C-alpha cells in the first residue's frame, strides 16, 4: 500500500477518531463527569422531606380520594381522567389503597434516610403518579413541581451521599448531570413563568403583587388597605420579580459556563445575589400566602447550586454546631 493510499484510508479514520474524542470530552464536561455526592444527597434529604410532609397531609382522606369509597369511582373515574395512568384505577378496595399508601409512606422514609434508596424512590414515585392520576383535580401548581422533582430525583442516584446506603457501601461519585438537571428544571419553571406574565398588572400598572396579596382564596392577612398604602414599594417589587424570574435561565446558563471554565476568579459568582433574592421572595410568599409546599420545595432544590465542597463544609459546620449545643449543658452540670 502506498503512502498516498494509507493517507486516504487513515485520514477520515483519524478525523472520526478526533471527533469522537472531542464529543466524548464534551459529554464528559457537560453530563458525565463524576463528582462528590454530598450536594445531591442534601437535595434528596430536603426535597424528600417536603414530599413526605405533603404525603402525610393526605392521611385521613386516602380512601375518600383514591378508592371506591370516593364519590367518583370505578369506570367513571377512568372516564373523567382518561389521559392518566394510576394503580388506583385497578386497585380500588379501600383497605388495599390504604395499604399501598402506607407502603408509600415507608418508601418515602427510606428514601429520606437513604436506605434501599433506588427501590424506595421508585415505590414513592409510583404512589405519587397513582394519586395524581386517579384524582388529578385534587392537585395544583405546587403539586406539579413536586411531581417533576420526585421524577427527577427518582432517576438519579440520589442515595450515594449523606445516606445510610453511603454509610454501608461508602460514598460513590454521581454524574454532574444530576445537579445540572435540577438547576435546569428550576430555570424552566421560573423563566416560563416570567415570560408568560405578559399582562398589564405586571408590565404597565405593576399591581400584580398587590392583587396576589389580597386574594381571599389564599391570603394569610386581610390587609388590603395596608397593601394599597405600600403600593409605592409593591410596584417596583412587581417589576423586579418578573424580570428576576424571566432572567433566571440566563443566570443558570452563566453559572454553567462558570462551572465549565473551572470557576475562574474573574468570572463573578452570581449565586448569592440571585438565589438570595429567591430565598427572600419565597419566604415572603410563604409568609403572606397559602401556597401549600411550594416555597419549601423550591428552596430545597436551591441546594443543587452548592458545590460538593460547599455542601460538605455546610454539613461539617452543622455537625459542629449540634455537637457544641449537645456538649454545653453537660459542661454546665
Amino acid at each position, binding site marked *: 500500500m502506498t503512502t498516498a493510499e494509507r493517507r486516504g484510508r487513515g485520514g477520515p479514520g483519524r478525523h472520526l477518531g478526533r471527533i469522537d474524542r472531542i464529543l466524548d470530552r464534551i459529554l464528559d464536561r457537560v453530563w458525565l463527569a463524576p463528582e462528590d455526592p454530598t450536594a445531591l444527597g442534601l437535595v434528596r434529604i430536603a426535597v424528600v422531606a417536603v414530599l413526605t410532609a405533603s404525603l402525610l397531609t393526605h392521611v385521613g382522606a386516602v380512601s375518600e380520594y383514591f378508592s371506591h369509597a370516593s364519590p*367518583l369511582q370505578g369506570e367513571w373515574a377512568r372516564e373523567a381522567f382518561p389521559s392518566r*395512568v394510576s394503580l388506583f384505577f385497578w386497585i380500588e378496595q379501600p383497605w388495599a389503597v390504604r395499604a399501598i399508601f402506607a407502603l408509600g409512606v415507608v418508601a418515602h422514609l427510606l428514601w429520606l434516610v437513604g436506605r434501599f434508596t433506588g427501590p424506595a424512590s421508585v415505590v414513592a414515585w409510583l404512589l405519587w403518579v397513582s394519586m395524581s392520576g386517579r384524582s388529578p383535580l385534587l*392537585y395544583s401548581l405546587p403539586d*406539579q413541581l413536586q411531581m417533576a422533582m420526585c421524577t427527577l430525583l427518582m432517576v438519579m442516584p440520589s442515595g450515594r451521599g449523606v445516606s445510610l446506603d453511603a454509610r454501608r457501601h461508602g460514598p460513590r461519585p454521581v454524574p454532574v448531570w444530576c445537579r445540572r438537571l435540577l438547576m435546569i428544571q428550576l430555570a424552566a419553571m421560573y423563566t416560563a413563568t416570567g415570560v408568560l406574565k405578559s399582562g398589564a398588572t405586571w408590565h404597565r400598572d405593576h399591581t*400584580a403583587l398587590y392583587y396576589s396579596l389580597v*386574594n381571599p382564596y389564599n391570603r394569610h392577612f386581610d390587609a*388590603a388597605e395596608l397593601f394599597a398604602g405600600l403600593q409605592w414599594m409593591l410596584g417596583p417589587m412587581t417589576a423586579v420579580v418578573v424580570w428576576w424570574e424571566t432572567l433566571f435561565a440566563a443566570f443558570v446558563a452563566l453559572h454553567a459556563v462558570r462551572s465549565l471554565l473551572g470557576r475562574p476568579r474573574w468570572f463573578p459568582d452570581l449565586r448569592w445575589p440571585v438565589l438570595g433574592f429567591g430565598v427572600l421572595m419565597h419566604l415572603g410568599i410563604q409568609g403572606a400566602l397559602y401556597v401549600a409546599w411550594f416555597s419549601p420545595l423550591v428552596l430545597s432544590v436551591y441546594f443543587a447550586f452548592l458545590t460538593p465542597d460547599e455542601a460538605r463544609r455546610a454539613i461539617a459546620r452543622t455537625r459542629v454546631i449540634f455537637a457544641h449545643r449537645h456538649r454545653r449543658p453537660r459542661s454546665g452540670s
Partner: protein
Amino acid sequence: MKPLRLLHALVPTALLVGIVAPVLPTAHFGPVPGAVARALLLVSIKQSWAMYAPDPQRAHTYMELEALYPDGSTAPLEESVDVERGWGTTWAWRKTRMDIWRFYANFHPARRNDNRTWYLRLVCVREARRGEPPRKITMHQVKRRFTPPAKVAAGAPGLRDPVRQLVTVAYCNASPAREMIEADRRLNPELHDHG
C-alpha cells in the same frame, strides 16, 4: 466513545427534553411541545408553568349549590358556606384538596367545563349517601372583584360587592349520575345506611 457512555448520556438528554420541550412555543416548534407534554401527562407530569399569568386573579369566585329534592323542597349544599365565609383569610389547616377541585370547577362559567360536570355528579353521589338524592342541583357563582390599590388607598373597600350568576343545572336522576349513585349503593352500602 463507548456505547455505555453514550447510553448514559442519553438519560439526562431525554430528561432535558422532557423539561424544556413542553414550555417551547408551539408557533416555532410545531406539534413537538404538545406531543411531549401529552406523553408526560400520562404519568401526571406537567411542565406548564403559567403561575399568575398573564395576570394574577383580579376577582374571586365561589360556587353556590342548591339542591331540589323530589318532594319539592330545596336546601343549600355545603359548598355554599364559602359564599358566606370565604372572603377573609386562608390558612393551610382550613383547606382541603377538594377546594382545589372546586376552584377548577368554577372556570369558564359560560363554557363547557368537564371538571365542573364531574364535580356536580360527585355531589349527587355524596348527597345520596346523606339521604334522599336531590333531583337536581342548581349551580350559581358568586364573584367579587378586587378593588384596585389606588381606590383602596382612597378609602374604598378591598372587595367589591358580590355578583351572582347562574352557571348550570345538574340532574342527579339522569345518566351517568343515576348509575353512579346505584353503583355506589352496591359498593358502599354502609355509607348509604341512613338509619
